[in-house]
């Protein structure tokens, strides 16, 4: 079985430097077994989208407290569209009033999380939104694991061998 991990780019676009929330969300996603690329502060939408493309991100999370969300989110969506990457899920949070969140939703932002949203909900949402083959639960990867180019014939029936060769079923 493959080791599929959900990859999320979390970013702070614009000039705002309040990173408490984005760091908490990053940790929560990591604790849920996802690979989280943090691009740092003061990012332009162009930088964020470039990162999302290079990192093959499944989702991009934007944290904005400066009030510029109606400029920054649409720009990110536009750039993803131009790159043919509309399938990347865009979500976000910060200081975003409800009506703006609704407008952004109509433009293609998949979710806006208001302050106070439990991280567990954000994690579950990302998992569901990304969908696909991500691991159902966070779990340790067997240490010292390596991959074989082939599954051995014995594995075809019954108990499937972990390609890492530990003999235990992968998650």
């Amino acid at each position, binding site marked *: 079985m493959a080791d599929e991990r959900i990859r999320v780019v979390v970013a702070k676009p614009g*000039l705002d430097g309040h990173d408490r929330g984005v*760091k908490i969300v990053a940790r929560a996603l990591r604790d849920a077994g996802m690979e989280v690329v943090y691009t*740092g*502060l003061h990012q332009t939408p162009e930088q964020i989208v470039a990162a999302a493309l290079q990192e093959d991100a499944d989702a991009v999370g934007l944290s904005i407290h400066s009030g510029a969300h109606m*400029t920054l989110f649409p720009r990110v969506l536009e750039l993803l569209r131009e790159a043919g990457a509309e399938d990347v899920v865009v979500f976000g949070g910060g*200081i975003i009033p409800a009506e703006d969140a609704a407008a952004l939703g109509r433009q293609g932002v998949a979710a806006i999380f208001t302050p106070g949203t439990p991280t567990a909900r954000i994690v579950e949402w990302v998992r569901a939104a990304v969908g696909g083959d991500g691991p159902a639960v966070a779990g340790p990867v067997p240490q010292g694991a390596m991959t074989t180019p082939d599954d051995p014939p014995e594995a075809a029936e019954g108990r499937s061998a972990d390609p890492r060769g530990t003999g235990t079923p992968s998650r």
Partner: protein
Amino acid sequence: MTHQDVPAEPTPSSSGHAGPGRRTTGPADPEAGRADPGAGPADSGTAIGEAAERWRARYAATGERDADFTTLSGEEVAPLYSPLDDPDRDVAGTIGFPGEYPYTRGVYPTMYRGRSWTIRQFSGFGNARETNERYKYLIAHGGGGLSVAFDMPTLMGRDSDDPRSLGEVGHCGVAIDSVADMEVLFSGLPLERLTTSMTISGPAPMLFAMYLVVAERQGADLAHLDGTLQTDIFKEYIAQKEWLFPPQPHLRLTADLMQFCAAEVPKYHPISVSGYHIREAGSTAAQELAFTLADGFAYVELGQRRGLDVDVFGPQLSFFFDAHIDFFEEIAKFRAARRIWARRLRERYGATNPKALQLRFHTQTAGVSLTAQQPDNNVVRTAIEALAAVLGGTQSLHTNALDEVYALPTERAARIALRTQQVLAEETGAGNVIDPLGGSWYVEHLTDVTERRAEELFARIEEMGSGSMLDGVLAGIDRGWFQQHIADAAFAYQQQLEKGEKVIVGVNRHVTDDEPLEILRIPAEVEREQRQALARRRADRDQGAVDAALAKLEAAARGDTNLIPHLVDAARAEATLGEMTVTLKGVFGEYVEPPML
């Protein structure tokens, strides 16, 4: 200073056990909970000792309910404190009297009996004209001093027409591109008579230069200017992340400011060493206290290395703290702050001027405690936080408006925030008695604990700096040490919230459907108009004079002369903030923080 005696079996007694099987995630100080020993052998036989034992027995028999009894920061506290706690305390040496070393009870002998704290409501939004109107409104309604909030581009040293400023002009404060804007901002407001606080740090020297030009044009005498410039760059690297350059150039500019003010603007406070942002970023109360004071000590060392006399520049330092929702923890924090500062300034840095030993501070109620859900509750939170600041002896106070979670405050919300302080000052009697909680067994205990925690952190910082706080702070920033502590504390608190161990009413308990809240919108015209005004200004000014001033500024930056006069010259020529910043970035470079999650 506290007794270490502990009763044989761990009962939930006044010795401070939180109850069987309860864990906290905050820093565990084994002494904290056991600070009240109660039944030491020396105490039985006294009336009070026996009373304590009786109480303890009854307490154990009744039992605690299942709840979290730690402070917001996770500090364990006992159910009760009594005279049996620390009976040998050196009251004169550690508590003393107001206006006297170590200033635990307050920096002035009269405190609010002499003069009430200043109501200083931070505000600014849109353009200078609208902000000017809001200032006049606040002053008319009884606000005492001005406090300027700048917009994000200004805070980051960018002009309103900078491509990176798109969508951010005027949103969280006023857009100031050059002196022309500042003149409008203070139009009709005599700077010589109004204390003016400017909340800006990275580009503080540039904004200060503009302020001086406006004051000069109003005919004010620099020696009479009273106010505060935030300036504190350490907390930017640590928490708020609004720096322009790497640390060393910022420190050079800070020292330039200190030197300039010491000589030319003696009543002005060129640095407001800030803990607010550190706390808002998620630190505990003790971390807020320790990191802020460490930054303060670092500035003292900076000034001394520049050859300045601590007795001269020390009085010009002021502080800025958060007032969070755990009432007593905050009061203890403020009292500990004064005591620590006084002691270190005297013993470590050799200050003898009492004014240098007095820690004076401004407080803002905790923005991070406000909720978007059921925002009316925020009025209650703010009131309690404000009371804590008052009982903690703050010199000036900003109370948040109930809608500040979403946006800049509406006029109605801003008025309620203002009235909150007026009710406190004029109805509650909270200011009638100086340090009214002084002598409270609990508050004195908590003050001691907070001080102890801070000292532990000071030791680590000094170690990173081989004995120097300045070097320690810089090393810590470089390593992401502060940032890591803050992120860890923030995450730990978040987990407590999500497990329901800590409660926020309306968010994880007592949740209801929300009523829509009317919020202040900054119309897009603000940005458009600002950009147009800026374009006109650029066209109208003497470009040659601007270029010459910027060239001089650049040359001075490459050398080591004091940059403030050069900034003033550039400001006078109507150079924009962005132009001054770009000029300096050309010399100083830029900075990316260490990745610390």
